[in-house]
C-alpha cells in the first residue's frame, strides 16, 4: 500500500476523471467533455493517474483510450477494512471505559451514603 494511492485521488479533478471512467473505457476527448476542463488539464491528470497505476491506456488508431485498473482500488479497500477494524476495537474499549467510569461513580455514591 502506498501513500500516493490517496494522494493521487486527493485531487477533485482526478476523482472526477475516475468517476467518469467507471462507466467504461474512454477517449481523452470524451473525458474532456464529461469532466469539463481543458484538454491539457485532462491529459496532465491522466498522466498522473497512469503513473500511479490507476488507469491504463491503449492506442486505437489516432485515439488514446483510457480505462481503470483494479489494483489501486483493491489497495484502497484493504486499507479501509484494516482501518475500520482498528477503530471498531478502539470503540469497544471506549465503551468499556465509559462503563468503568460509571461503575466507579456509583460505588463512590454508595460509599458516601452508607
Amino acid at each position, binding site marked *: 500500500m502506498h501513500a500516493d494511492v490517496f494522494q493521487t485521488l486527493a485531487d477533485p479533478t482526478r*476523482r472526477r476523471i475516475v*468517476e467518469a471512467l467507471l462507466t467504461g473505457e474512454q477517449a481523452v476527448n470524451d473525458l474532456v467533455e464529461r469532466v469539463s476542463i481543458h484538454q491539457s488539464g485532462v491529459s496532465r491528470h491522466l498522466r498522473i493517474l497512469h503513473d500511479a497505476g490507476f488507469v491504463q491506456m491503449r492506442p486505437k488508431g489516432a485515439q488514446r483510450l483510457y480505462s481503470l485498473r483494479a489494483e489501486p482500488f483493491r489497495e484502497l479497500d484493504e486499507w*479501509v477494512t484494516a482501518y475500520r477494524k482498528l477503530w471498531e476495537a478502539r470503540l469497544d474499549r471506549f465503551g*468499556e471505559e465509559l462503563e468503568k467510569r460509571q461503575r466507579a461513580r456509583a460505588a463512590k455514591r454508595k460509599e458516601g451514603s452508607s
Partner: protein
Amino acid sequence: MIKHPRGMTAENRRRIRLERTYQAPIEDVWELWTTKAGIESWWGPGGFRVVVKSIDVRPGGKLEYVMEAVDPEQIAFMKQSGMPTAHDATLTYVEVVAPTRLAYVHAADFIPGVEVYDVSHVIEIAETADGVRMTLTFDAMHDEHWTNMAKAGWEQELDKLGRALTT
C-alpha cells in the same frame, strides 16, 4: 474494463463512518477524547500502551503520545520484523466544540505495510433519546476545505507565537 459494484465509487471507498451509542453522560464521552487520562485509557490498540506526552485541545493544538508494545508476543513480533517497539505520534486538532464536535488530522501510520499519510477524523457527539450517539468519520483524502481549516489552525498558532515573541 473493471466491473465496479454499485455505489463503490472512489468517493465512498476512501471514507469510513462508524456510529456507536453509549449509555453515559456526554461529559464522560468528551473527557475520554480530550484528556490525558481519558485518551490513555482506550486509545492504544490491543497489546499497546499509550502515554500522552502533551495535549493541547484547540484548533491548531497538538496531541503528542508514545505508543509502546506491552504484549510479549507483540514485542517479539515487532523485534523480529525490525520495527521499533515504541514510537511517537502526533495529531493536530482542527475543530474543537465541547462537548459535541472534534476534528483532527492524524497520520495513519501503524497498519503494517502502510506508509504514513494524513487522515482527517471528525467526531460528532449528540445526546439522543437512546443515549449519547457518537459518529466518527475518517477520510483518507483531504479536500480543499480540510486543507484550509488545518492551515487556518496553523496560522492562528503562528500568530500567537508571533505575539508571544514580540511582547
